[in-house]
């Protein structure tokens, strides 16, 4: 907290985080290029196909934004946990559970639009939130590490999800596919860009980014959570109950994960199937890390990951690079961007030097 005062001394310091972000991304792409070159693929072709697939047509760009949406929610979920000193590894499970709950409310209940859609979204958020609050409670009350419990809870969700829509499962639609029935139109998020699959979910995600920012930095509860995250003993000494904050943080984090699933089901697929999330919850961890756990950073890095996701398909389709190379490349880029903290000391030293020079 005292750092804040020092920071004001130099405007350059404000640029550290954005520079760290951009440099991390650049380094990642350079590392990817080296990797592609070593494996005998042309980096220019590959990256050309990647960006073509992410931006070159209306539908491609819509698909990019489509993958960005759940990544914003997921990234916010992880970031919110981090701010309270908690590592929510259960976002993937919360996404699946949120999607399941939203789908159920969406197809099983008949309600008018104005109630149905918000209720389905709420169901997703609450389901994810409860699933997140369990590890929060276990951490606060019994000191059981949340990394372990959130991962374990993921597997329970995955298996339940598979059962729900298997032959004879309670949510199985009356057809030959392993899916739930279609969500009723009153619970569907409208498509906002003609000829694409893009729904209003992207705006909900951006609104939530603002809400999380306000919550973390402008409300008392958010302040308390960050205090616990920075130093839970000091926070306790100051009269904050760290346990209660942890449960709340994990509930909210899980709720954001659940919303990601709900928006995905109600806005993209209009039905539930067990593997509707292609690992958004795992990418979300990297999104939060790259975004330095700040809502603005999360939105920016979610967009970058969205580009990677939609572009990776065209890398296969246009540049004819095999799926495995594409997967390794994405993993490599994710690794490099997520470890951009290594750049921070260098950048700080550099700023300091520039600063002292200027002072002279």
């Amino acid at each position, binding site marked *: 907290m005292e750092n804040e005062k020092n*920071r*004001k001394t130099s*405007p350059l*310091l*404000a*640029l*550290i*985080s*954005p520079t760290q*972000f*951009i440099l991390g991304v650049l380094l990642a792409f350079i590392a990817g290029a080296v990797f592609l070159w070593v494996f005998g693929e042309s980096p220019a072709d590959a990256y050309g196909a990647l*960006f073509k*697939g992410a*931006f*070159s*047509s*209306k*539908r*491609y*760009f819509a*698909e990019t934004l489509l993958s960005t949406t759940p990544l914003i929610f997921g990234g916010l979920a992880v970031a919110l946990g981090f701010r309270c000193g908690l590592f929510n590894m259960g976002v993937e499970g919360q996404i699946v559970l949120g999607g399941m709950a939203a789908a159920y409310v969406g197809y099983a209940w008949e309600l008018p639009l104005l109630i149905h859609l918000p209720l389905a979204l709420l169901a997703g958020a609450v389901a994810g939130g409860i699933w997140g609050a369990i590890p929060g409670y276990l951490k606060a009350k019994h000191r059981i590490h949340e990394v372990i419990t959130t991962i374990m809870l993921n597997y329970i969700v995955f298996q339940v999800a*598979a059962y729900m829509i*298997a*032959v004879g499962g309670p949510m199985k639609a009356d057809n*030959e*596919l*392993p*899916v739930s029935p279609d969500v009723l139109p009153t619970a569907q998020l409208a498509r906002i860009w003609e*000829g694409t*699959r893009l729904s209003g979910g992207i705006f909900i995600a951006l609104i939530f980014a603002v809400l999380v920012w306000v919550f973390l930095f402008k409300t008392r509860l958010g302040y308390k959570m960050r205090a616990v995250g920075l130093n839970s003993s000091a926070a306790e000494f100051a009269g904050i109950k760290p346990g209660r904050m942890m449960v709340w943080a994990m509930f909210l984090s899980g709720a954001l994960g659940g919303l990601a699933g709900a928006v995905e089901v109600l806005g993209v*697929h209009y*039905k539930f*199937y067990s*593997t*509707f*999330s*292609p*690992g958004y919850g795992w990418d979300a961890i990297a999104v939060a890390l790259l975004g330095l756990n*700040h809502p*603005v*950073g999360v*939105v*920016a890095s979610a*967009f970058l990951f969205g580009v990677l996701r*939609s572009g990776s*398909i*065209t890398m*296969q*389709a*246009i540049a*004819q690079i*095999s*799926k495995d190379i594409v*997967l390794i490349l994405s993993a490599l880029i994710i690794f490099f961007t997520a470890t951009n903290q290594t750049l921070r000391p260098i950048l700080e030293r550099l700023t300091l030097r520039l600063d002292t020079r200027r002072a002279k």
Partner: protein
Amino acid sequence: MKKNAMLVLFLLVVVMIMPACQPSTTEAPGEVQEVEDEPVVDASDMSFAMVTDQAGLGDQAFNDATWEGFTALNEDYGVQVKVVETNEQAQYVPNLSTLAEQGEDLIVGVGFLLKDAVNEVAPLYPDIHFALIDNFVDQPNVASIQFAENEGAYLMGAIAAYMTETGKVGFVGGMETDVVKKFEAGYRAGVMTVDPDMEVLVSYAGAFNDPAKGKELALAQYDQGADVVFQVAGFTGTGVIDAAVERDQMVIGVDRDQNYLAPDNVISSMMKGLGAGVYDVGQMIINGEFQGGSYRYGIKEGGIDYAPSTSKNVPADIMTKIDQLKQMIVDGEIAPPATLEELESFTPPEI
């Protein structure tokens, strides 16, 4: 300060990106015409693509068998062929539409799981031909290629029942879905035809891309006394074959002649003419006579059969009986059940 700078930066990035996507937006995608309506079609100008299911290429079964149709089209007509492999169910739609956006001449969705995706994408690109394998989509630009797997599985059931020494046979399925259930029903009926009281162990792996699970399930069946296992599990099935080698027991393959995977253990395979089905559709497009609708392949149409390698491990007297059953199916004297409900009312023929 810090926050403002981040915001400015993000806006900068957005502004930089926006113009990049502006010009192509005006192209009005979806109107990718100019391909058709030529009476003489030069096939080397054509491009056919396939979207795999989650197992992907190298599954030694379903996807590889379909890909054989593509390579044959490439060799015979010079058609350009490409493949996009799917990692996750959520990618079916983007994979299909990415290819459609490219203006492919034919896009094949490999597997019944792509039904919804094909149904969603095909109407958006009415000028592009689609084919779907193992399921039916009612769109004018979609050819649905379906097989009578129950007929082939019936023969496999009979082979298993004739070959077993323990009097117990097994079945390992991929996902528990109607297509795989169709195999199971046919298989059970085949076993029942040879010996109505024979026990059939059945397990499902829940995935087509999980060889470890397949192996575990098969080992369990062998350890329970089964000595022949029929696997209908895509890439998961390679694990089943592994288990057969490990226990030195018999196993029956699927989709392609899988004997080369374990020459002493794979006693037969149910051949599914996936490549031939794709080849037929491809030919129609090359000749400019594509028609949407249902294309069904059974034993009679030559789309389903037992593998040629079967005679290596199965004695001649059993082969004669299998050929008899095969003929009876062709003649319509036996109608192997396609669902477990139909199996209940199935009365085995006298042989």
